[in-house]
């Protein structure tokens, strides 16, 4: 052990908490810390004052080792009894803990040192910056520049290498010139994650259009009122209003809607329902309000269907109501928008759709993140994300049906020009992580719950 090392023991601190502190102490390179189980060997004792039955041990410790420094942690306020005692109120902030350790270190060693967090700093960065109480000295060597920002009343230092700066500029330029090709490649790759037939069914094949061309505009709208989608929407409202199960007959097929339990059951599977969504309904539907006692019977039917599905891998026939409406809309819209949707007004997303329980559309997470952050027009959303319009249109149509998205009529949303999405400083590593998540998306990895 060197003379500058601080030896720390714990009293009343849970073992899991100790690990967190150990992790933290290891990150403070300016003050080497050693942890010990032997209180008699420690210089500082970190005491959790909230631990069960700690008071007696604490008093005993003070009596046995009056020369040792004590760092008391507690949820309650505490008055230190002497200059060897320090107190931090929980939740402990790392800056406060560092400052207190620094103070103790000063008292112990008689030296003056300030602690800079060294997590993930390169050796060059560490040696480049020295901070004293009175002055800040920056070792600005020929190869380095230091950018100083003031954020939240704190100075933040970023060491920038000239070489790195040039590389960064080159990288940005390259990114700009190649971004369209790259986006197309990414889009194509994401599209492959769905079966081709599924993708066509969900988002269609419509190419991007020029929104100023009236002829092209006709291609991207559909009228939900002419299709099964609007009938189902009305039936769901009816089920909510009557608090009953509604039976809907479409051609020779039967659907049951139970708003109270948020369940839809049909006598046929997706193979039949999807084409039904594309046929103009005319007057080929009828409905009936079921007796409340039917709910028990319906439960039995659904359970029986689930069992059959397991045994014979039959098609799915029961859905959560929201998932069903999402699916019906995707099949109906096929990458188009409900008639009358504005392409020039911004659209907003009230909340993220429950994407883990809804059928996947390529780029849904990206679209949701952008629209949830702030309203954008639909064409601008596609443009900003570098994806085809049909993905955005499909996403918007489905979100609108389940009540999560709509056109924004706030004047302020029209006032501001669309902004380029903010790029994170660790964009490269985030992209790699994203790539890893997407690549292994189909990985069926089920582990036991610990």
């Amino acid at each position, binding site marked *: 052990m060197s003379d500058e090392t601080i030896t720390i023991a714990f009293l009343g601190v849970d073992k899991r908490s100790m*690990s967190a502190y150990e992790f933290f102490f290891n990150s403070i390179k300016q003050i080497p810390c050693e942890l010990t189980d032997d209180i008699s060997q420690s210089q500082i004792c970190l005491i959790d004052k909230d631990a069960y039955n700690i008071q007696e041990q604490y008093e005993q410790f003070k009596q046995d080792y009056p020369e040792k420094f004590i760092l008391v942690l507690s949820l309650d306020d505490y008055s230190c009894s002497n200059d060897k005692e320090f107190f931090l109120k929980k939740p402990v902030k790392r800056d406060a803990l560092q400052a207190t350790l620094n103070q103790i270190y000063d008292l112990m060693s008689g030296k003056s040192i300030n602690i800079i967090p060294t997590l993930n700093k390169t050796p060059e960065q560490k040696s480049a910056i020295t901070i004293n109480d009175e002055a800040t000295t920056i070792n600005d060597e020929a190869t380095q520049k230091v950018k100083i920002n003031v954020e939240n009343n704190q100075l933040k230092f970023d060491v920038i290498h000239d070489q790195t700066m040039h590389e960064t500029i080159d990288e940005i330029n390259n990114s700009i010139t190649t971004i369209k090709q*790259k986006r197309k*490649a990414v889009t194509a790759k994401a599209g492959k994650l769905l079966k081709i037939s599924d993708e066509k069914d969900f988002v269609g094949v419509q190419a991007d259009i020029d929104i100023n061309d009236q002829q092209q505009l006709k291609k991207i709208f559909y009228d939900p009122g002419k299709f099964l989608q609007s009938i189902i929407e009305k039936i769901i409202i009816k089920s909510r209003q009557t608090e009953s199960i509604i039976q809907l007959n479409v051609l020779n097929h039967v659907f049951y809607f139970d708003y109270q339990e948020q369940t839809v059951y049909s006598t046929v599977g997706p193979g039949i329902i999807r084409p039904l969504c594309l046929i103009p309904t005319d007057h080929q539907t009828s409905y009936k309000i079921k007796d409340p006692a039917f709910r028990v019977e319906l439960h039995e039917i659904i359970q029986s269907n689930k069992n059959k599905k397991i045994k014979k891998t039959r098609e799915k026939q029961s859905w959560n109501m929201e998932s069903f409406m999402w699916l019906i809309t995707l099949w109906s819209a096929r990458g188009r928008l409900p008639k009358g949707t504005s392409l020039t007004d911004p659209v907003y997303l009230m909340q993220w759709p429950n994407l883990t329980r809804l059928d996947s559309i390529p780029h849904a997470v990206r679209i949701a*993140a952008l629209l949830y952050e702030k309203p954008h027009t639909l064409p601008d959303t596609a443009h900003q994300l570098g994806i085809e319009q049909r993905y955005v249109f499909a996403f918007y149509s489905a979100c609108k049906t389940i009540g999560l998205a709509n056109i924004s009529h706030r004047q302020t949303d029209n006032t501001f020009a669309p902004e380029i999405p903010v790029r994170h400083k660790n964009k490269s590593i985030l*992209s790699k*992580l*994203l790539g890893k998540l997407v690549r292994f998306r189909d990985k069926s990895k*089920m582990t036991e719950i610990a």
Partner: protein
Amino acid sequence: MNELKIIFAGPVGSGKTTAIATLSDEAPVCTNQSASDMTRVRKSETTVAMDYGTMTLDAQEKIHLYGTPGQERFNFMWDILTSNGLGLVLLLDNTRRDPLNDMTFFLESFKDYINETAVSIGITQTDIVPLVKIDHYHRKMKELGFNGAIFEVDARSFDDMSHLVQALLFTIDPGLESPA
């Protein structure tokens, strides 16, 4: 070596251990095991520690996955763990007595960290007790002044956990693209 952390928080039994196991490239280990390399004097080896896993991106880059201890009494250490974190994945157990209160507690506890980074929330066990709906979580989140994705998840499902982390990444940077 560029290394970033994702913090997994939530009450006891919300699925943090499982989520990290699901995403991690290797079997999760305890932080005390990795920290032991750096500590000069070891305390006893019986320490039970935080859940820890890694996602290796390439030879130079790695994402660390840290699970905070779930008990409220450990909240004082959370600030210490979040240094250099990328964002927070909050898991909430829908079968707990008051999961909305849990959400409030954790969002408020990690408020500063979330404001600096981002949060995405996974609700587990919704198939067992569906009394609290996802809309209730969204409403509560808005009331508390936070923004982020909320999904129903099964912590054992890679697809679910992938969606949750993707949502976190796109919340941080909606313009992010996966490498071609």
